[in-house]
């Protein structure tokens, strides 16, 4: 067991990598919130952050390797991040109950309709594009 100790020390050095990765993501999140305050549009800071990150990746200001592990981790645990807000449903029951049937119907119909339209339109255009390439 004891011969493992030097390895653990080496590891602890490399864990700083994850701190650095998280710092990059936090700085971009912070910049995104700043843009949300500056620009008078109903676009959340997280979206500005997403676009900023995409821009930084495209311009090679940030390499994928510099945020790879932290983004894999955060995307993996993403469902957990919704639990506290979703549990707030407990305080929304009165609002939800008032129009429960309407909400359920709108949700059900819209989800199926979006799936139909997006899927069929994409399929139609892909077929046309492939036929064009063959000619």
């Amino acid at each position, binding site marked *: 067991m004891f011969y493992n100790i030097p390895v653990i020390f080496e590891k602890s050095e490399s864990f700083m990598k994850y701190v650095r990765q998280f710092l990059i993501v936090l700085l971009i999140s912070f910049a995104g919130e700043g843009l949300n305050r500056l620009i008078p549009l109903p676009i959340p800071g997280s979206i500005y952050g997403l676009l900023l990150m995409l821009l930084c990746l495209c311009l090679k200001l940030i390499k994928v390797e510099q945020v790879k592990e932290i983004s894999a981790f955060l995307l993996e645990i993403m469902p957990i991040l919704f639990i506290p807000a979703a549990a707030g449903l407990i305080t929304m029951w009165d609002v939800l109950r008032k129009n429960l049937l309407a909400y359920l119907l709108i949700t059900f119909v819209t989800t199926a309709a979006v799936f139909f339209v997006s899927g069929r339109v*994409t399929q139609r255009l892909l077929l046309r594009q492939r036929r064009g390439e063959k000619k």
Partner: protein
Amino acid sequence: MKLLTESAFFGVAVSLLAYFVGVELRKKLKSDLMNPLLFSVAAVIAVLLLTKVEYETYYAGAKVISFFLTPATVCLAVPLYEKLGVLRKNKLAILVGIGSGVLTAMVLILLMSVLFGLSHTEYVTLLPKSITTAIGMGVSEELGGYVTLTVAIIILSGIQGNMMAPLLCRLFRITDPVAKGIGIGAASHAIGTSRAIKMGETEGAMSGLSMAVTGILTVIAASIFAVLY
């Protein structure tokens, strides 16, 4: 008891434990009907009702979890960046496909909100229903909707897509893997995407891409449609 519930760790621990149990249950049951997120939310609500803890008390601790939502959304840029090649090659079909889906959602929600006589607040609560929760919460908040209700409806849309994707593909005669992925991601975001990944590599990749683009397009479209009713 008071110490337990007023500790900042109570809310976080209950949330994580609920998700852990949900994931284990899905492994045991091997069923798409067992959705860990849905289970966690139901379990947390059950615990709050049983222990008679106020939601505000729970959230005072659990908001530490919500802190990570913005960084996680920022990280959605990474898979989107890695799939830019596929997007460039089929950009017209993909973008028009996603755009028409976003428009369909907006128009249908507007029409049905008028039909059911919903209030403006309820209408803007529903507008971001097809996009990933992190973005949808932001849109709902900015437009003045009920954020928690938006989250609930987003989760319902996701679970519907997750459970019904293969059936809807057959019913609507969508056979192309790219088109399947785009449709699933546009209609049912991350929760639908987790099913698309199981249907195939292309379906999964396209669903993830579609989810991100749908989110961004909906931010713009929802702010325009919010003025209409």
